[in-house]
């Protein structure tokens, strides 16, 4: 294949980094909006891995899965933002730690 030829390993490395950053954000952020954003990052990391793999083996499946993930992510954000609104209304805060009612 001509043109830009990036080795698969590099792409996977980026994907892993993105995933880790997302997961780290998930664990350490308290604001629910940032948590949602971290989730998006993780989804995109996975999507990147699919696209790279599809390109590597010359199969279209990777890109199809990418489309699916994109849809899922959009749906997720829609639901997620709805929840964020509810949380904000109910608890008057976006801090997840102070919004827990499920003690023991």
């Amino acid at each position: 294949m001509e043109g830009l030829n990036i080795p698969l390993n590099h792409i996977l490395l980026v994907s892993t980094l993105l995933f880790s950053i997302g997961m780290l954000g998930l664990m350490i952020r308290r604001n629910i909006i940032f948590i949602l954003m971290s989730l998006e990052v993780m989804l995109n990391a996975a999507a990147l891995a699919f696209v790279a793999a599809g390109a590597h083996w010359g199969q279209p499946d990777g890109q199809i899965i990418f489309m699916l993930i994109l849809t899922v992510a959009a749906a997720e954000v829609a639901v997620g933002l709805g929840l964020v609104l509810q949380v904000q209304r109910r608890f008057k805060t976006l801090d997840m730690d102070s919004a827990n009612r499920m003690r023991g």
Partner: protein
Amino acid sequence: MGDMIWLVPLIPMLSSILLMLGSGSLPRVIIGLLGVCSVGAAAVLTLLVGLDFLANPQPFQMTLWTWMQVGNFSPGIAFYFDGLTLVMMSVITGVGFLIHLFSTEFMEEDVSYARYFAYLNMFVAAMLVLVMADNLLLLYLGWEGVGVCSYLLVGFWYQNSANGQAARKAFVVTRIGDTAMALGLLLLFTQLGTLDIQAMMGVANEQWQVGDTLPLIACLLLLGGAVGKSAQLPLHTWLPDAMAGPTPVSALIHAATMVTAGVYLIARTNGLFLLAPTAMMIVALIGLATSLMAAFTALMQSDIKRILAYSTISQIGYMFLALGVGAWTAGIFHLMTHAFFKALLFLGSGAIIHYLHHEHDIFKMGGLRSKMPVTFWSFMIGSAALAALPMTSGFFSKDQILLQAYLQPDAGPWLWLGGLLGALLTAIYSFRLVFVVFFGEAKTQPDGDTGWRMALPLVVLCGLAMVGGYFIIPVAEVFPVASGEHPANWVEYVSISVPLMGLLLSYLIFHSGQLNVDKLVNSSLGQWLRRFWHSGWGIDWLYDRIFVRPYYRLSGIMVNEPIDAIYGLIVAINQTFNHWLAESQTGRMRWYIASMVFGLILVLTLALQISAEAL
């Protein structure tokens, strides 16, 4: 006349029910009349039926209705009437009537007058059912009814917890024997297919040979029941404690009638026992051992009722000895004479206790001879009969037993010697009682002598205790014919003289003081023997150690339910884990995520590790 016998147990039963229902509302006079007259009516009926029977001695059977019908098992509410039944019924209703009459005065002040007579009537009814029953199941019903009434009457003054204790002891100890008897009934039914006594003995004679194992087992199980009810070794310990009840109760139940139920049972099933000579030998040995043990114990007691209680055990031992050597008639004869003189002695002691403000210790009495003449003469005659002095009723019956024991082929002379020793001791302890209580200096002042309701039964029983020996009981048809043998004359002379020797010894020791036994008693061995015999050969102590205390200890452990603790452990483990897991449910989402991540890392690492190894 014979078809009226079903009324005999029914009348006291109805009276008992009436008294129970109306205990709060009936006036005392009516209660007394009802209680006494119902038994009196039963006695009169028995007399009429008995006269009829003596004129035409034909045993008959009477089925009222079928009790239950299960397969080929159909016991009836059926009565059987023969000479043995007649003797037992006469003793129960006759002596029972006198004791009821005595009770009206003895219990006059008691609050629970109606309850007392209700129980007493119920007892008489149950005992009548026992002796009249045609099949062993109905007999067992009467047997248990008697046990229940005994329990109720021993614990009659239930406010004192010691009395309740004594009642429970009587109930539990006899229950051990009853269980053996129930097993015996089951065995007999499965083997012989019927529980009707007459039919059963016929089948047994066809099916079994003399000396077979099965009749031996059946007899031993029946003997277990008899031993429990008749207070023989090793189940005799309830009787001395049963003296906690009112004294007329002791007279009726624990001397005259109920304790003889065991003797009656063995005599009634004599056809079975004849098939098992070993069982007969065991009966004789138990009787002899019990009579000696109880006689030694009676010698050391100081409670007037306990002396009489042990003498009862001892005399029933004689009856067992008689049954064991095949002297059926002599055994039943002794049962009857014993009922007369023991009821007399117990009622006499009841009079003493009544007028001495519930004093039981004979050493605190003394000199009562002139103050209570009726009671004194009752005791004189009763003790003479108990000791079997010549011409009294006890003499005829006990003499017969000893002579027949001598003729027993295997160990006759030994049984005879043992019986003689018992007779000697009986004479010593019964006259010890008389000398200590009625002679010597007066230590207490009685309130007076007996009123007519107490005196009349005493006088009648005095007469019976004197002449009872001349009665001829109509049991010749019931028992196999005894051999006409007669032991040598010297055996008879010795048997007659031994009680007299006992009387002489008793006189020398306890009255004139010419024979001084202080030295003997005060030696260390004497003291030890004294304590040993006083405690009833330590049997109560032994049972306490072997059965009662381990049982209490075991219950003490079981009350905490150790088996449950195992299941409790499972619950505890679950609860601990639940606690830990519940702790982890903090509701903090970031912690959940963190734990998921670490879990994921762990799983991935493991998966990689395993796949690397697999390569």
